[in-house]
Protein backbone atom coordinates (compact mmCIF):
# COMPACT_ATOMS: atom_id res chain seq x y z
CA UNK A 1 0.00 0.00 0.00
CA UNK A 2 1.38 3.36 -1.02
CA UNK A 3 0.93 6.05 1.63
CA UNK A 4 1.16 9.75 0.79
CA UNK A 5 1.69 12.60 3.23
CA UNK A 6 1.15 16.28 2.56
CA UNK A 7 1.95 19.69 4.03
CA UNK A 8 2.62 19.58 7.80
CA UNK A 9 2.21 15.78 7.84
CA UNK A 10 5.41 15.53 5.80
CA UNK A 11 7.22 17.21 8.68
CA UNK A 12 5.60 14.81 11.13
CA UNK A 13 6.63 11.71 9.17
CA UNK A 14 9.83 13.01 7.64
CA UNK A 15 8.79 11.72 4.23
CA UNK A 16 6.34 12.39 1.42
CA UNK A 17 5.40 8.76 0.95
CA UNK A 18 5.91 5.31 2.38
CA UNK A 19 5.02 1.71 1.60
CA UNK A 20 3.34 -0.73 3.93
CA UNK A 21 2.25 -4.29 3.23
CA UNK A 22 -0.92 -5.13 5.14
CA UNK A 23 -1.66 -8.85 5.15
CA UNK A 24 -5.39 -8.16 4.83
CA UNK A 25 -7.55 -5.10 4.11
CA UNK A 26 -7.60 -2.65 7.03
CA UNK A 27 -10.36 -0.38 8.24
CA UNK A 28 -9.53 3.21 9.19
CA UNK A 29 -8.97 2.31 12.84
CA UNK A 30 -6.52 -0.47 11.97
CA UNK A 31 -4.75 1.72 9.45
CA UNK A 32 -4.23 4.39 12.10
CA UNK A 33 -2.75 1.78 14.41
CA UNK A 34 -0.31 0.75 11.67
CA UNK A 35 0.55 4.36 10.85
CA UNK A 36 1.19 5.34 14.46
CA UNK A 37 3.49 2.36 14.87
CA UNK A 38 5.70 3.67 12.10
CA UNK A 39 5.10 7.40 12.56
CA UNK A 40 4.26 8.13 16.20
CA UNK A 41 4.32 11.89 15.56
CA UNK A 42 1.14 11.55 13.48
CA UNK A 43 -0.82 11.08 16.73
CA UNK A 44 -1.18 14.85 17.06
CA UNK A 45 -2.98 14.97 13.68
CA UNK A 46 -5.35 12.09 14.21
CA UNK A 47 -8.43 14.18 14.88
CA UNK A 48 -7.87 16.65 12.05
CA UNK A 49 -6.56 14.52 9.16
CA UNK A 50 -8.76 12.59 6.74
CA UNK A 51 -7.96 9.51 4.67
CA UNK A 52 -8.26 9.49 0.90
CA UNK A 53 -8.32 6.16 -0.92
CA UNK A 54 -7.31 6.16 -4.58
CA UNK A 55 -7.64 9.94 -4.77
CA UNK A 56 -11.10 10.21 -3.22
CA UNK A 57 -12.06 10.91 0.38
CA UNK A 58 -12.65 7.59 2.10
CA UNK A 59 -16.05 6.78 3.56
CA UNK A 60 -16.11 5.79 7.26
CA UNK A 61 -16.59 2.10 6.36
CA UNK A 62 -13.82 2.03 3.71
CA UNK A 63 -11.36 -0.88 3.64
CA UNK A 64 -7.80 -0.11 2.61
CA UNK A 65 -6.03 -2.88 0.78
CA UNK A 66 -2.53 -3.51 -0.45
CA UNK A 67 -2.89 -2.08 -3.95
CA UNK A 68 -4.56 1.15 -2.82
CA UNK A 69 -2.98 4.58 -2.89
CA UNK A 70 -3.83 6.05 0.49
CA UNK A 71 -3.27 9.70 1.33
CA UNK A 72 -3.51 11.35 4.70
CA UNK A 73 -5.08 14.77 4.12
CA UNK A 74 -4.54 17.47 6.77
CA UNK A 75 -6.98 20.44 6.85
CA UNK A 76 -6.75 22.12 3.42
CA UNK A 77 -6.03 25.79 2.75
CA UNK A 78 -6.17 26.35 -1.01
CA UNK A 79 -7.58 29.29 -2.93
Amino acid at each position, binding site marked *: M*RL*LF*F*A*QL*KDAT*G*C*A*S*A*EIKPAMPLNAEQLWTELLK*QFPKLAAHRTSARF*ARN*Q*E*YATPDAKFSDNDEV*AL*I*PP*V*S*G*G
Partner: protein
Amino acid sequence: MEIEVQLTHELIAEKIPPPNSIGAHGAWLEFRGVVRAEENGRAISALEYEAYPEMAEREIRRILKSLSVRHPCLAAKIVHRVGVIPVGETAIYAGIASSHRGEAIALLAEFMNLLKQDVPIWKVRALPPSSITQPESSGTEKRQPSQAAEKLKSGALSFDEAFAKIRSASQPLPALRAPLAEAFGRVLRETVRAVEDFPAYDRSTRDGYAILQNDSSETFQIVDTLHAADWKPRQLKTGEAVRVATGSALPCEKLRVVMQENVERIGDTIKIIRLENAANVRRRGEEMRAGQTVLQPGTVLNAGTLALLATVGCAQPLVSPRLRIVHFTTGDEVVPPDQVPRPGEIRDSNSILVRGLLQKFPCDIIQNHLREDFSSAKSRAEMLKAEIESADVLLISGGASVGEKDFTRDLLAHLGFQIVFDRLNIRPGAPLIFGVNGPRVAFGLPGNPVSHFVCFHLFVAAALRGLVGAESENFLRGPLASGLEDQPNPRETFTPARLDPAGLHPLKWTSSGDVTCLVETNALIRVPANCGSIEAGDEVEFLPT
Protein backbone atom coordinates in the same frame (compact mmCIF):
# COMPACT_ATOMS: atom_id res chain seq x y z
CA MET B 1 -21.33 21.20 -17.96
CA GLU B 2 -17.99 21.46 -19.74
CA ILE B 3 -15.24 21.41 -17.08
CA GLU B 4 -11.55 22.23 -17.44
CA VAL B 5 -9.20 21.97 -14.46
CA GLN B 6 -5.52 22.77 -14.36
CA LEU B 7 -2.88 22.79 -11.64
CA THR B 8 0.26 24.62 -12.66
CA HIS B 9 3.59 25.89 -11.40
CA GLU B 10 3.47 28.64 -14.01
CA LEU B 11 2.21 32.19 -13.81
CA ILE B 12 -1.53 32.25 -14.58
CA ALA B 13 -2.08 34.28 -17.76
CA GLU B 14 -3.49 37.81 -17.55
CA LYS B 15 -6.15 36.94 -20.10
CA ILE B 16 -7.90 33.62 -20.35
CA PRO B 17 -10.29 33.13 -23.28
CA PRO B 18 -13.94 32.22 -22.58
CA PRO B 19 -15.06 28.68 -23.46
CA ASN B 20 -16.39 27.67 -26.85
CA SER B 21 -19.97 27.83 -25.60
CA ILE B 22 -19.76 31.52 -26.48
CA GLY B 23 -23.03 32.60 -28.01
CA ALA B 24 -24.96 30.17 -25.81
CA HIS B 25 -23.81 31.87 -22.63
CA GLY B 26 -25.05 35.22 -21.56
CA ALA B 27 -22.67 35.42 -18.59
CA TRP B 28 -18.91 34.80 -18.35
CA LEU B 29 -17.91 35.31 -14.73
CA GLU B 30 -14.24 35.47 -13.84
CA PHE B 31 -12.66 35.41 -10.40
CA ARG B 32 -8.99 35.66 -9.37
CA GLY B 33 -7.75 34.91 -5.88
CA VAL B 34 -4.54 36.91 -5.44
CA VAL B 35 -1.75 36.57 -2.85
CA ARG B 36 -2.04 39.40 -0.32
CA ALA B 37 1.03 41.21 1.07
CA GLU B 38 0.08 40.07 4.55
CA GLU B 39 -0.53 36.68 6.13
CA ASN B 40 -1.70 36.37 9.75
CA GLY B 41 -0.79 40.02 10.38
CA ARG B 42 2.79 39.73 9.08
CA ALA B 43 4.22 41.22 5.93
CA ILE B 44 5.17 38.56 3.38
CA SER B 45 6.67 38.44 -0.11
CA ALA B 46 5.11 35.20 -1.32
CA LEU B 47 3.11 32.15 -0.33
CA GLU B 48 4.12 28.63 -1.12
CA TYR B 49 1.37 26.20 -2.08
CA GLU B 50 1.46 22.43 -2.25
CA ALA B 51 -1.13 20.10 -3.76
CA TYR B 52 -2.05 16.47 -4.14
CA PRO B 53 -2.52 17.21 -7.83
CA GLU B 54 -4.41 14.15 -9.07
CA MET B 55 -6.88 14.24 -6.22
CA ALA B 56 -7.21 18.04 -6.28
CA GLU B 57 -8.31 17.86 -9.92
CA ARG B 58 -10.81 15.11 -9.19
CA GLU B 59 -12.22 16.95 -6.18
CA ILE B 60 -12.63 20.18 -8.14
CA ARG B 61 -14.49 18.28 -10.87
CA ARG B 62 -16.64 16.45 -8.33
CA ILE B 63 -17.59 19.69 -6.57
CA LEU B 64 -18.42 21.47 -9.84
CA LYS B 65 -20.53 18.56 -11.05
CA SER B 66 -22.53 18.32 -7.88
CA LEU B 67 -23.06 22.11 -7.73
CA SER B 68 -24.21 22.24 -11.35
CA VAL B 69 -27.26 20.17 -10.40
CA ARG B 70 -28.60 23.09 -8.35
CA HIS B 71 -26.97 25.87 -10.39
CA PRO B 72 -26.98 24.72 -14.02
CA CYS B 73 -24.03 26.35 -15.80
CA LEU B 74 -22.54 25.77 -19.26
CA ALA B 75 -18.80 25.70 -18.62
CA ALA B 76 -16.20 26.13 -15.89
CA LYS B 77 -12.46 26.59 -16.07
CA ILE B 78 -10.42 26.40 -12.86
CA VAL B 79 -6.68 27.02 -12.70
CA HIS B 80 -4.84 26.73 -9.37
CA ARG B 81 -1.19 27.65 -9.18
CA VAL B 82 1.17 25.81 -6.81
CA GLY B 83 4.75 26.38 -5.70
CA VAL B 84 6.01 29.81 -4.66
CA ILE B 85 3.55 32.56 -5.65
CA PRO B 86 4.75 36.14 -5.15
CA VAL B 87 2.46 38.79 -3.66
CA GLY B 88 0.07 40.25 -6.23
CA GLU B 89 0.03 37.18 -8.45
CA THR B 90 -2.97 34.92 -9.01
CA ALA B 91 -3.20 31.77 -6.90
CA ILE B 92 -6.57 30.66 -8.27
CA TYR B 93 -8.51 31.55 -11.37
CA ALA B 94 -12.14 30.53 -11.86
CA GLY B 95 -14.16 31.25 -14.99
CA ILE B 96 -17.82 30.21 -15.09
CA ALA B 97 -20.13 30.48 -18.11
CA SER B 98 -23.90 30.30 -17.81
CA SER B 99 -27.01 31.45 -19.68
CA HIS B 100 -27.81 34.06 -17.02
CA ARG B 101 -25.60 35.67 -14.38
CA GLY B 102 -27.48 34.30 -11.35
CA GLU B 103 -26.42 30.66 -11.76
CA ALA B 104 -22.75 31.51 -12.39
CA ILE B 105 -22.53 33.83 -9.35
CA ALA B 106 -24.22 31.29 -7.06
CA LEU B 107 -22.08 28.42 -8.33
CA LEU B 108 -18.85 30.38 -7.97
CA ALA B 109 -19.63 31.48 -4.39
CA GLU B 110 -20.41 27.94 -3.28
CA PHE B 111 -17.51 26.48 -5.23
CA MET B 112 -14.96 28.71 -3.51
CA ASN B 113 -16.31 27.73 -0.08
CA LEU B 114 -16.13 24.03 -0.88
CA LEU B 115 -12.68 24.38 -2.44
CA LYS B 116 -11.35 25.81 0.82
CA GLN B 117 -12.95 22.92 2.67
CA ASP B 118 -12.21 19.83 0.59
CA VAL B 119 -9.68 20.30 -2.21
CA PRO B 120 -6.27 18.95 -1.17
CA ILE B 121 -4.22 22.11 -1.70
CA TRP B 122 -2.27 23.74 1.11
CA LYS B 123 -0.52 26.98 1.87
CA VAL B 124 2.63 25.46 3.33
CA ARG B 125 4.77 28.50 3.95
CA ALA B 126 4.77 32.29 3.93
CA LEU B 127 8.04 33.80 2.71
CA PRO B 128 9.34 36.84 4.60
CA PRO B 129 9.73 40.12 2.67
CA SER B 130 13.52 39.96 2.28
CA SER B 131 13.40 36.73 0.34
CA ILE B 132 12.11 38.21 -2.92
CA THR B 133 11.96 41.98 -2.79
CA GLN B 134 15.54 42.77 -1.70
CA PRO B 135 17.26 44.84 -4.40
CA GLU B 136 20.14 43.36 -6.37
CA SER B 137 23.29 44.20 -4.46
CA SER B 138 25.93 43.70 -7.12
CA GLY B 139 24.80 44.38 -10.62
CA THR B 140 28.15 44.60 -12.36
CA GLU B 141 27.12 42.70 -15.44
CA LYS B 142 24.60 44.37 -17.71
CA ARG B 143 22.12 41.94 -19.11
CA GLN B 144 18.67 41.78 -20.54
CA PRO B 145 16.54 40.11 -17.88
CA SER B 146 15.11 36.90 -19.26
CA GLN B 147 11.43 36.10 -19.01
CA ALA B 148 11.77 33.83 -16.00
CA ALA B 149 13.89 36.29 -14.08
CA GLU B 150 11.58 39.18 -14.81
CA LYS B 151 8.68 37.16 -13.50
CA LEU B 152 10.38 36.60 -10.20
CA LYS B 153 12.46 39.76 -9.72
CA SER B 154 14.69 37.68 -7.54
CA GLY B 155 17.13 39.60 -5.32
CA ALA B 156 20.49 38.44 -4.05
CA LEU B 157 19.80 35.98 -1.24
CA SER B 158 21.98 35.30 1.77
CA PHE B 159 23.37 31.81 2.29
CA ASP B 160 20.75 31.06 4.97
CA GLU B 161 17.85 32.23 2.80
CA ALA B 162 19.02 30.25 -0.22
CA PHE B 163 19.66 27.17 1.90
CA ALA B 164 16.15 27.33 3.39
CA LYS B 165 14.57 27.60 -0.06
CA ILE B 166 16.55 24.63 -1.35
CA ARG B 167 15.71 22.46 1.62
CA SER B 168 12.01 23.27 1.42
CA ALA B 169 11.94 22.51 -2.33
CA SER B 170 13.82 19.22 -1.94
CA GLN B 171 11.29 16.87 -0.40
CA PRO B 172 12.04 13.18 0.17
CA LEU B 173 11.38 11.00 -2.89
CA PRO B 174 9.25 7.86 -2.44
CA ALA B 175 11.16 5.17 -0.60
CA LEU B 176 11.54 1.61 -1.81
CA ARG B 177 12.88 -1.70 -0.52
CA ALA B 178 16.38 -2.69 -1.60
CA PRO B 179 18.58 -5.70 -0.79
CA LEU B 180 21.40 -4.98 1.66
CA ALA B 181 24.04 -5.41 -1.06
CA GLU B 182 22.53 -2.44 -2.93
CA ALA B 183 21.76 -0.27 0.07
CA PHE B 184 25.19 1.22 0.86
CA GLY B 185 25.06 5.01 1.03
CA ARG B 186 21.27 5.12 0.84
CA VAL B 187 19.14 6.66 3.57
CA LEU B 188 17.05 4.42 5.79
CA ARG B 189 13.42 5.49 5.62
CA GLU B 190 11.81 3.33 8.29
CA THR B 191 12.29 2.58 11.95
CA VAL B 192 14.05 -0.76 12.35
CA ARG B 193 13.42 -2.75 15.51
CA ALA B 194 15.02 -5.90 16.84
CA VAL B 195 12.59 -8.77 16.26
CA GLU B 196 14.16 -10.88 18.99
CA ASP B 197 16.57 -10.50 21.88
CA PHE B 198 20.18 -10.31 20.85
CA PRO B 199 21.93 -12.46 21.74
CA ALA B 200 18.86 -14.70 21.69
CA TYR B 201 20.19 -16.81 24.59
CA ASP B 202 22.92 -16.60 27.21
CA ARG B 203 26.27 -17.33 25.59
CA SER B 204 29.63 -18.23 27.04
CA THR B 205 32.50 -15.84 26.37
CA ARG B 206 35.16 -18.39 27.44
CA ASP B 207 36.19 -22.00 27.03
CA GLY B 208 35.39 -23.54 30.41
CA TYR B 209 32.66 -25.00 32.59
CA ALA B 210 29.17 -23.60 33.15
CA ILE B 211 27.79 -23.90 36.68
CA LEU B 212 24.90 -22.33 38.61
CA GLN B 213 25.66 -18.71 39.54
CA ASN B 214 25.54 -19.29 43.32
CA ASP B 215 26.79 -22.86 43.45
CA SER B 216 29.50 -23.18 46.14
CA SER B 217 30.05 -26.92 45.77
CA GLU B 218 33.58 -28.28 46.20
CA THR B 219 33.48 -30.53 43.14
CA PHE B 220 31.20 -30.65 40.11
CA GLN B 221 29.98 -33.55 38.01
CA ILE B 222 30.36 -32.88 34.25
CA VAL B 223 26.93 -33.77 32.88
CA ASP B 224 27.28 -32.62 29.27
CA THR B 225 29.67 -31.15 26.68
CA LEU B 226 28.59 -28.36 24.31
CA HIS B 227 30.23 -27.33 21.06
CA ALA B 228 29.80 -23.90 19.43
CA ALA B 229 26.62 -24.61 17.46
CA ASP B 230 24.98 -26.98 20.00
CA TRP B 231 21.57 -26.14 21.42
CA LYS B 232 20.86 -28.47 24.37
CA PRO B 233 18.66 -26.79 26.97
CA ARG B 234 18.62 -28.37 30.43
CA GLN B 235 18.20 -27.11 33.98
CA LEU B 236 21.51 -27.49 35.83
CA LYS B 237 21.42 -28.63 39.42
CA THR B 238 23.76 -27.84 42.29
CA GLY B 239 27.03 -29.70 41.83
CA GLU B 240 26.60 -30.08 38.07
CA ALA B 241 28.80 -28.54 35.37
CA VAL B 242 28.62 -28.44 31.57
CA ARG B 243 31.73 -28.23 29.44
CA VAL B 244 31.29 -25.19 27.10
CA ALA B 245 33.25 -23.46 24.34
CA THR B 246 33.46 -19.73 23.57
CA GLY B 247 30.17 -18.78 21.90
CA SER B 248 28.25 -21.83 23.20
CA ALA B 249 24.56 -21.32 23.91
CA LEU B 250 24.29 -22.05 27.63
CA PRO B 251 21.79 -24.77 28.59
CA CYS B 252 19.78 -22.45 30.88
CA GLU B 253 19.88 -18.96 32.42
CA LYS B 254 21.49 -17.80 35.71
CA LEU B 255 24.78 -19.58 35.01
CA ARG B 256 28.41 -18.54 35.21
CA VAL B 257 31.36 -19.94 33.30
CA VAL B 258 34.59 -20.87 35.08
CA MET B 259 37.55 -20.59 32.72
CA GLN B 260 39.19 -23.94 31.98
CA GLU B 261 42.56 -22.74 33.27
CA ASN B 262 40.99 -22.17 36.70
CA VAL B 263 39.79 -25.74 37.26
CA GLU B 264 41.41 -29.07 37.93
CA ARG B 265 39.76 -31.87 36.02
CA ILE B 266 39.65 -35.35 37.51
CA GLY B 267 37.81 -37.81 35.24
CA ASP B 268 34.22 -36.63 34.94
CA THR B 269 34.50 -34.11 37.73
CA ILE B 270 36.11 -30.73 38.18
CA LYS B 271 37.43 -28.86 41.19
CA ILE B 272 37.58 -25.03 41.05
CA ILE B 273 41.01 -23.68 41.87
CA ARG B 274 40.22 -20.02 41.47
CA LEU B 275 36.79 -18.38 41.13
CA GLU B 276 36.84 -15.08 39.24
CA ASN B 277 34.39 -12.24 39.73
CA ALA B 278 33.42 -12.18 36.05
CA ALA B 279 30.55 -14.45 35.04
CA ASN B 280 31.99 -14.82 31.51
CA VAL B 281 28.50 -14.82 30.05
CA ARG B 282 26.85 -12.56 27.46
CA ARG B 283 23.30 -12.44 28.72
CA ARG B 284 20.23 -12.76 26.50
CA GLY B 285 19.13 -9.34 25.19
CA GLU B 286 22.30 -7.68 26.49
CA GLU B 287 22.92 -5.96 23.15
CA MET B 288 19.32 -5.50 21.96
CA ARG B 289 15.94 -6.31 23.40
CA ALA B 290 13.12 -7.63 21.21
CA GLY B 291 11.09 -4.65 19.97
CA GLN B 292 13.82 -2.15 20.74
CA THR B 293 14.49 0.48 18.05
CA VAL B 294 17.93 -0.16 16.62
CA LEU B 295 17.96 2.36 13.73
CA GLN B 296 15.96 5.51 13.07
CA PRO B 297 14.73 6.78 9.70
CA GLY B 298 17.20 9.26 8.20
CA THR B 299 20.25 7.13 8.98
CA VAL B 300 22.76 7.05 6.12
CA LEU B 301 23.59 3.37 5.68
CA ASN B 302 27.31 2.61 6.05
CA ALA B 303 29.14 -0.67 6.50
CA GLY B 304 28.39 -0.80 10.23
CA THR B 305 24.68 0.00 9.97
CA LEU B 306 24.28 -2.53 7.15
CA ALA B 307 25.89 -5.18 9.37
CA LEU B 308 23.40 -4.29 12.10
CA LEU B 309 20.49 -4.61 9.65
CA ALA B 310 21.80 -8.04 8.64
CA THR B 311 22.07 -9.04 12.32
CA VAL B 312 18.43 -8.22 13.01
CA GLY B 313 17.29 -9.92 9.79
CA CYS B 314 16.20 -6.75 7.96
CA ALA B 315 17.33 -7.99 4.54
CA GLN B 316 15.23 -5.57 2.44
CA PRO B 317 15.23 -2.25 4.28
CA LEU B 318 13.01 0.62 3.12
CA VAL B 319 15.50 3.11 1.70
CA SER B 320 15.80 6.16 -0.52
CA PRO B 321 15.91 5.49 -4.26
CA ARG B 322 19.07 5.95 -6.33
CA LEU B 323 18.96 9.53 -7.54
CA ARG B 324 18.78 10.19 -11.27
CA ILE B 325 20.97 13.09 -12.24
CA VAL B 326 21.42 14.79 -15.60
CA HIS B 327 24.47 17.06 -15.87
CA PHE B 328 25.08 19.36 -18.83
CA THR B 329 28.30 21.22 -19.37
CA THR B 330 28.03 24.28 -21.58
CA GLY B 331 30.41 26.72 -23.20
CA ASP B 332 32.00 26.66 -26.62
CA GLU B 333 35.49 27.13 -25.21
CA VAL B 334 35.82 23.73 -23.54
CA VAL B 335 37.31 20.63 -25.14
CA PRO B 336 37.49 17.07 -23.69
CA PRO B 337 40.47 16.37 -21.36
CA ASP B 338 42.21 14.17 -23.94
CA GLN B 339 42.36 16.95 -26.53
CA VAL B 340 44.88 19.75 -26.88
CA PRO B 341 43.07 23.07 -26.48
CA ARG B 342 43.62 25.65 -29.20
CA PRO B 343 44.26 29.25 -28.13
CA GLY B 344 41.17 30.48 -26.31
CA GLU B 345 40.02 26.98 -25.41
CA ILE B 346 40.33 25.09 -22.11
CA ARG B 347 39.93 21.45 -21.12
CA ASP B 348 36.66 20.44 -19.45
CA SER B 349 37.38 19.71 -15.80
CA ASN B 350 33.84 20.28 -14.52
CA SER B 351 32.40 16.99 -15.86
CA ILE B 352 34.76 14.83 -13.84
CA LEU B 353 34.64 17.22 -10.87
CA VAL B 354 30.85 16.93 -10.66
CA ARG B 355 30.97 13.17 -11.19
CA GLY B 356 33.48 12.90 -8.34
CA LEU B 357 31.46 15.12 -6.00
CA LEU B 358 28.39 12.97 -6.66
CA GLN B 359 30.21 9.79 -5.57
CA LYS B 360 28.94 10.19 -2.00
CA PHE B 361 25.37 9.80 -3.20
CA PRO B 362 24.12 6.57 -4.78
CA CYS B 363 22.98 7.92 -8.15
CA ASP B 364 22.88 7.35 -11.88
CA ILE B 365 24.50 10.16 -13.83
CA ILE B 366 23.96 11.15 -17.43
CA GLN B 367 26.44 13.76 -18.67
CA ASN B 368 26.32 15.67 -21.92
CA HIS B 369 27.69 18.84 -23.45
CA LEU B 370 25.56 21.66 -24.85
CA ARG B 371 26.77 24.20 -27.35
CA GLU B 372 26.11 27.76 -26.25
CA ASP B 373 23.59 28.33 -28.97
CA PHE B 374 20.04 28.26 -27.75
CA SER B 375 18.47 26.49 -30.72
CA SER B 376 21.10 23.76 -30.83
CA ALA B 377 20.86 23.37 -27.02
CA LYS B 378 17.09 23.09 -27.33
CA SER B 379 17.32 20.36 -29.93
CA ARG B 380 19.93 18.46 -27.88
CA ALA B 381 17.67 18.79 -24.84
CA GLU B 382 14.80 17.52 -27.01
CA MET B 383 16.84 14.39 -27.84
CA LEU B 384 17.40 13.76 -24.14
CA LYS B 385 13.82 14.65 -23.21
CA ALA B 386 13.04 11.31 -21.55
CA GLU B 387 16.21 11.42 -19.45
CA ILE B 388 15.63 15.02 -18.41
CA GLU B 389 12.01 14.39 -17.51
CA SER B 390 12.83 11.37 -15.38
CA ALA B 391 15.78 13.07 -13.66
CA ASP B 392 15.42 14.08 -10.01
CA VAL B 393 18.15 16.68 -10.35
CA LEU B 394 19.32 18.68 -13.34
CA LEU B 395 22.75 20.33 -13.13
CA ILE B 396 24.01 22.79 -15.72
CA SER B 397 27.62 23.93 -15.57
CA GLY B 398 27.91 27.43 -16.93
CA GLY B 399 30.41 28.42 -19.58
CA ALA B 400 32.61 31.47 -19.32
CA SER B 401 31.21 33.82 -21.90
CA VAL B 402 29.02 36.86 -21.35
CA GLY B 403 25.38 35.87 -21.37
CA GLU B 404 25.96 32.31 -20.18
CA LYS B 405 23.73 32.98 -17.21
CA ASP B 406 20.82 34.03 -19.41
CA PHE B 407 21.47 30.95 -21.49
CA THR B 408 21.20 28.64 -18.46
CA ARG B 409 18.20 30.47 -17.07
CA ASP B 410 16.36 30.41 -20.38
CA LEU B 411 17.18 26.74 -20.88
CA LEU B 412 15.82 25.90 -17.42
CA ALA B 413 12.66 27.91 -18.12
CA HIS B 414 12.33 26.12 -21.48
CA LEU B 415 12.54 22.78 -19.64
CA GLY B 416 9.65 23.83 -17.39
CA PHE B 417 11.63 24.93 -14.32
CA GLN B 418 10.54 27.89 -12.30
CA ILE B 419 13.54 29.97 -11.21
CA VAL B 420 13.51 30.32 -7.42
CA PHE B 421 16.63 32.50 -7.25
CA ASP B 422 19.44 33.43 -9.58
CA ARG B 423 21.80 35.51 -7.46
CA LEU B 424 23.39 35.05 -4.06
CA ASN B 425 25.11 37.45 -1.75
CA ILE B 426 28.05 35.08 -1.22
CA ARG B 427 31.51 34.48 -2.66
CA PRO B 428 32.36 32.40 -4.63
CA GLY B 429 29.19 31.20 -6.32
CA ALA B 430 27.17 34.44 -6.47
CA PRO B 431 25.60 33.68 -9.88
CA LEU B 432 24.11 30.33 -8.72
CA ILE B 433 20.69 29.61 -10.26
CA PHE B 434 18.14 27.39 -8.55
CA GLY B 435 14.92 26.18 -10.17
CA VAL B 436 12.09 23.82 -9.34
CA ASN B 437 9.68 21.84 -11.45
CA GLY B 438 7.30 19.89 -9.23
CA PRO B 439 9.43 17.62 -7.04
CA ARG B 440 12.46 18.09 -9.32
CA VAL B 441 15.21 20.61 -8.73
CA ALA B 442 17.80 22.22 -11.00
CA PHE B 443 21.00 24.16 -10.45
CA GLY B 444 22.85 26.41 -12.83
CA LEU B 445 26.41 26.29 -11.47
CA PRO B 446 28.76 29.22 -12.11
CA GLY B 447 31.46 28.07 -14.54
CA ASN B 448 34.70 27.98 -12.60
CA PRO B 449 35.70 24.82 -10.73
CA VAL B 450 36.12 26.48 -7.30
CA SER B 451 32.56 27.87 -7.55
CA HIS B 452 31.39 24.40 -8.60
CA PHE B 453 33.08 22.86 -5.59
CA VAL B 454 31.71 25.42 -3.13
CA CYS B 455 28.17 25.49 -4.57
CA PHE B 456 28.06 21.71 -4.62
CA HIS B 457 28.92 21.36 -0.94
CA LEU B 458 26.78 24.28 0.24
CA PHE B 459 23.70 23.84 -1.94
CA VAL B 460 23.58 20.87 -4.31
CA ALA B 461 24.44 18.45 -1.48
CA ALA B 462 21.68 20.04 0.64
CA ALA B 463 19.16 19.37 -2.15
CA LEU B 464 20.38 15.81 -2.65
CA ARG B 465 20.18 15.13 1.09
CA GLY B 466 16.64 16.54 1.12
CA LEU B 467 15.60 14.31 -1.79
CA VAL B 468 16.91 11.18 -0.10
CA GLY B 469 15.43 12.11 3.26
CA ALA B 470 18.63 12.82 5.21
CA GLU B 471 19.31 15.64 7.65
CA SER B 472 21.41 18.46 6.27
CA GLU B 473 25.04 18.69 7.32
CA ASN B 474 25.78 21.24 10.00
CA PHE B 475 28.64 23.67 10.13
CA LEU B 476 31.21 22.73 12.77
CA ARG B 477 33.45 25.04 14.81
CA GLY B 478 37.21 24.89 14.90
CA PRO B 479 40.30 27.08 15.34
CA LEU B 480 42.18 28.76 12.50
CA ALA B 481 45.73 27.38 12.22
CA SER B 482 46.84 30.47 10.37
CA GLY B 483 45.23 33.89 10.34
CA LEU B 484 42.93 35.29 7.67
CA GLU B 485 44.00 38.77 6.63
CA ASP B 486 41.53 41.59 6.57
CA GLN B 487 40.28 41.90 3.03
CA PRO B 488 37.41 43.81 1.52
CA ASN B 489 34.64 41.20 1.59
CA PRO B 490 31.24 42.81 1.32
CA ARG B 491 29.76 39.31 0.91
CA GLU B 492 29.77 36.28 3.14
CA THR B 493 32.72 34.18 1.87
CA PHE B 494 33.32 30.44 1.88
CA THR B 495 37.08 29.97 1.80
CA PRO B 496 38.60 26.62 0.80
CA ALA B 497 40.78 25.31 3.63
CA ARG B 498 42.83 22.34 4.74
CA LEU B 499 41.83 20.89 8.09
CA ASP B 500 44.55 19.04 9.99
CA PRO B 501 45.26 18.45 13.70
CA ALA B 502 46.61 22.01 14.00
CA GLY B 503 43.32 23.48 12.81
CA LEU B 504 42.11 25.12 9.63
CA HIS B 505 44.61 26.46 7.09
CA PRO B 506 42.91 28.87 4.66
CA LEU B 507 44.08 28.17 1.10
CA LYS B 508 44.83 30.67 -1.65
CA TRP B 509 42.03 30.75 -4.17
CA THR B 510 40.79 33.09 -6.84
CA SER B 511 37.35 33.39 -8.31
CA SER B 512 38.85 32.95 -11.75
CA GLY B 513 39.04 29.25 -11.25
CA ASP B 514 42.24 27.80 -9.79
CA VAL B 515 41.84 24.06 -9.59
CA THR B 516 45.12 23.66 -7.70
CA CYS B 517 43.68 24.82 -4.35
CA LEU B 518 41.08 22.02 -4.54
CA VAL B 519 43.84 19.43 -4.27
CA GLU B 520 44.29 20.19 -0.57
CA THR B 521 40.78 21.37 0.28
CA ASN B 522 38.86 19.30 2.80
CA ALA B 523 36.85 22.08 4.47
CA LEU B 524 35.13 25.38 3.69
CA ILE B 525 35.53 28.20 6.22
CA ARG B 526 32.49 30.46 6.60
CA VAL B 527 33.81 34.03 6.78
CA PRO B 528 31.14 36.61 7.66
CA ALA B 529 30.90 39.70 5.45
CA ASN B 530 33.09 42.67 6.48
CA CYS B 531 34.47 40.78 9.47
CA GLY B 532 37.99 42.25 9.40
CA SER B 533 40.98 40.01 10.01
CA ILE B 534 40.68 36.73 11.94
CA GLU B 535 43.67 35.72 14.08
CA ALA B 536 45.23 32.28 14.22
CA GLY B 537 43.60 30.38 17.11
CA ASP B 538 40.24 32.16 16.70
CA GLU B 539 37.27 29.83 16.30
CA VAL B 540 35.47 29.85 12.96
CA GLU B 541 32.57 27.95 11.43
CA PHE B 542 33.46 25.40 8.76
CA LEU B 543 31.90 22.66 6.69
CA PRO B 544 33.94 19.47 6.13
CA THR B 545 34.01 18.56 2.42
